[in-house]
């Protein structure tokens, strides 16, 4: 087979296959961070098993001088360090690409492809010769392939060494072995192969005002900045690191320096039901409280979510979506909870949803979630996913406005209650569907009975039709009115009016942007809208109404976003062309193009025939 010559500077993808639990994660993040520090746009995707130790795991690094951060499945270099997955890994490399493998054991002839170049490096043997302790021999294999990549890809050695010094500043004995392992891989590569490869790096200046962070860390930080004081949760992949982050930032920013006491309370609940209850209880008292979970947790919380909706208790639920249904694939991503979080719980319920597309928006929308929850006195869902939440993203540096103060909504003070003749919890005083709230302990006149059973506008138990209808109809108005106060959709217009549009959501954004650029280069200009909130507002309705056909790009089997759009805007289902990928990997531009191109080609041929 003929080799396609590859010569790609700052524009390629590397996949690293290792064994779970052998310390490769830190080597891979070292690599990613080094590229970032060289000023080159990068993104990292961790493809890991639901397992502690022993199963295959992968890390994908995409380098893109154009700044594209969506997953790219076109791997030019495979770092194959796990014989368990050699077969599959070697098959995945682009024709003309390279396979870096551990040559301590000879490669099975059946695995050899003649359209890729095999670079064998006896890492295990070299580590056994160079290092004494068993654990070190395993760990340093990872640093060894980083060393080889420094030579092969032309990574700046100064950057790598600087990072190792920072990482091990408190463990000087580890610096030596790490340096030694880097040198081991580097020297071997230089002595045996032409370095660098045609895929290589050159310093850029494109990451200066950026940071590398996961969505879950950013969400956690947003909760701290929004003033959340109570976090309740039950451990679940991929949401666990939200609470890990909240704890870390609280320990850093929220401990009274004088008393050593915490200005926060984190409760690890017995299950997701209890976590939801705690969040509702804390918000009832007037604290800002939240729970991070995933789809399975939302299922369990649904009864409580209905209570918070009907009793109008603010609450924030972070759903870091994973592949469903049921336990599904806990370490793979999906957007399978869109319907669930929009309408969670029995009876007529509808909730405010916010859809971040990257960690920057996780931070920003986490803060917005608390403001909206209090303003509209209702549950708010921050709908993230595993890809956004757990992967490393390069994002513009986060900003904070020190003039920000929480929007607490309508809460009556003791003075206001003192001057009131009678207080009614669910009375629509202002005609905007939002009643006045009181906090327990404020004033005797503010007391009322919070309940999930039928109640009238005064908060009294009722089984009367009219009294019941008055409350539930007002709540419907209230939630609908929130649409115009949610973060506005992101809209990209083409250079000329287009009869076709694309709508997408959350982390699909980056693949859609990339696919759209490629289509533009081919002369097809599509308008594009990314929804950022639910219920949808007029911008979304007008976008749908203003195009003949709209592609709806999302990551679930049943076209849930399309269903929501049909359901909420009343547009014809036939107008919305569904483009879906739901196999558990982050979306790539190929998924979008595969869905869009045939439909466009068909339409074009119909128009010209």
């Amino acid at each position, binding site marked *: 087979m003929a080799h396609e010559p590859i010569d790609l500077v700052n524009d390629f993808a590397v996949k690293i296959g290792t064994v779970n639990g052998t310390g490769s994660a830190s080597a891979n993040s070292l690599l990613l961070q080094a590229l970032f*520090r060289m000023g080159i746009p990068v993104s990292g995707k961790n493809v890991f098993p639901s397992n502690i130790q022993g199963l295959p795991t992968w890390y994908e690094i995409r380098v893109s001088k154009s700044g594209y951060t969506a997953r790219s499945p076109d791997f030019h270099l495979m770092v194959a360090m796990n014989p368990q997955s050699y077969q599959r890994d070697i098959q995945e490399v682009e024709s003309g690409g390279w396979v870096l493998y551990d040559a301590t054991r000879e490669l099975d002839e059946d695995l050899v492809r003649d359209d890729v170049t095999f670079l064998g490096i006896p890492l295990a043997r070299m580590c056994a010769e160079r290092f004494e302790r068993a654990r070190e021999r395993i760990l340093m294999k990872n640093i060894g392939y980083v060393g080889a990549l420094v030579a092969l890809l032309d990574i700046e050695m100064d950057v790598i060494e600087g990072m190792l010094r920072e990482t091990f500043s408190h463990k000087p004995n580890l610096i030596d072995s790490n340096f030694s392992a880097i040198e081991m891989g580097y020297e071997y590569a230089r002595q045996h192969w032409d370095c660098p490869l045609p895929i290589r790096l050159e310093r850029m200046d494109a990451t200066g005002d950026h*940071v*590398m962070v996961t969505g879950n860390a950013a969400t956690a*930080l947003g909760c*701290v*900045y929004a*003033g959340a*004081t*109570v976090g*309740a949760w039950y451990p679940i992949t991929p949401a666990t690191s939200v609470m890990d982050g909240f704890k870390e*930032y609280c320990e850093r*920013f*929220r401990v009274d320096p004088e*008393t*050593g*006491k*915490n*200005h*926060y*309370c*984190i*409760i690890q*609940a*017995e299950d997701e*039901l*209890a*976590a*939801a*209850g*705690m*969040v*509702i*209880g*804390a918000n*009832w*008292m*007037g*604290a800002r*409280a939240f729970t991070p979970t995933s789809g399975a947790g939302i299922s369990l919380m649904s*009864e*409580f979510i209905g*209570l918070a909706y009907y009793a109008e208790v603010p609450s924030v639920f972070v759903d870091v979506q994973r592949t469903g249904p049921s336990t599904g694939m806990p370490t793979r991503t999906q957007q399978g909870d869109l319907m669930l979080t929009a309408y969670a719980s029995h009876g007529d319920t509808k909730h405010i949803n916010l859809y971040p597309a990257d960690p920057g928006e996780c931070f920003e929308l986490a803060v917005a979630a608390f403001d909206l929850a209090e303003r509209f006195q209702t549950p708010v869902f921050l709908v993230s996913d595993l890809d956004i939440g757990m992967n490393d993203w390069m994002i513009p540096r*986060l900003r*904070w406005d*020190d003039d*920000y103060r*929480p929007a607490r909504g309508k809460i009556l003070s003791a003075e206001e209650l003192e001057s009131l003749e009678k207080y009614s919890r669910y009375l629509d005083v202002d005609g905007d569907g939002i009643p006045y709230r009181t906090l*327990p*302990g*404020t*004033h*005797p006149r*503010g*007391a*009322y*009975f*919070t*309940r*999930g*059973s039928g109640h009238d506008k005064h908060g009294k138990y009722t089984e009367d039709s009219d009294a019941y209808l008055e409350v539930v109809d007002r709540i419907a108005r209230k939630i609908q009115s929130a649409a115009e106060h949610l973060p506005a959709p992101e809209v990209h217009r083409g250079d000329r009016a287009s009869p076709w549009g694309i709508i997408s959501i959350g982390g699909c954004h980056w693949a859609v942007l990339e696919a759209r650029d490629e289509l533009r280069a081919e002369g097809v200009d599509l308008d594009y809208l990314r929804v950022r909130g639910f219920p949808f507002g007029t911008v979304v309705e007008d976008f749908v109404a203003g195009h003949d056909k709209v592609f709806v790009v999302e990551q679930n089997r049943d076209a849930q976003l399309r269903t929501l759009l049909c359901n909420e805007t009343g547009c014809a289902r036939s107008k919305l062309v569904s483009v879906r990928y739901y196999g558990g990997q982050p979306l790539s531009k190929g998924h979008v193009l595969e869905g869009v191109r045939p439909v466009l080609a068909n339409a074009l041929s119909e128009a010209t025939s």
Partner: protein
Amino acid sequence: MSYITKPVARHPRMRTNALGLTSRDYEGTMSTLCAGCGHDSVTAALVQAFFELDVEPHRVAKLSGIGCSSKTPAYFVSEAHGFNSVHGRMPSIAAGANAANRDLLYVGISGDGDSLSIGLGQLCHAIRRNVNMLYVLENNGVYGLTKGQFSASADVGTKSKRGEVNRHGPIDPVNVALSLGATFVARSFSGDKRQLVPILKAGLKHTGFALVDVISPCVTFNDHKGSTKSYAHTRFHMHEVVETDFVPLRAEIQTDYGEGAVQSVTMHDGSVVRFRKVAGDYDPTDRGAVLEHLRESRSRGEVATGLLYLEETGEDMHAYENTVEEPLVDLPFEALCPGSAALEKLQQEWR
């Protein structure tokens, strides 16, 4: 239930407490439970306890789950916020609320269905977490609102109103609480206000989770012959093992018992609980001995009552979580938000 609204008029010479309030000020709306329901007596005992402790009504938070018992928070302290949550999940609401505002007085009212079946997990974890609250379990061995099914506290051999016999072993909340390390465990009878009121008062003053299991007969579905939770059966088999007297802070201690027969435990706020031993050498501060005593009385068919176990450690969930003394809801935003400079600094580590 009665449909006649209670008149608001009160006797001019009605006794007032230190706040100048009468016991009527601690009442709530009219009960909608069946006439003669044990739960209404528990409500009356709670009203008396709050009145006698001079509690500011609006500084109380009363919570419940679902069931007959869970309706009762509407029937006392109408100037307190109430939360009638979902079935079996009140403990989590209470834990979250208490985490946010530790300064209120928390009272949870639940039943045997709400606490021992659907909500057993949450009850256990509230005990483990040591949420600072009084938890009253109105125990009648039966599901009233759904018309007479056995609950998990029904004794083996109990006959339902329809004549079915229960074969499943009961879950005893007192045993559960003691084995999970609860620091305040009591059992009483709705028909014995003299015993119940001091226990409720001590429970309100206890720092940590205070469980009071109250046998509270269901007059409609479980007050017949063959029931072990009926008025008649409870009156006959109830056996007070320890007599409790609650002495609030600053009140003069009168010695109406002989020295030696009285054992005192000082509460966190300085008030005192005094035990007068009725059943021989019963020691309400020895968890192992209490468990053994309960096992023995059960084997004799007795229902042991009284403040059965008390351990005043002064610690609760907030001590475990190391939270500030000031309620979290009262912390100013400035103390919570790290600000832009801290964000800049933090992000240096993300490069």
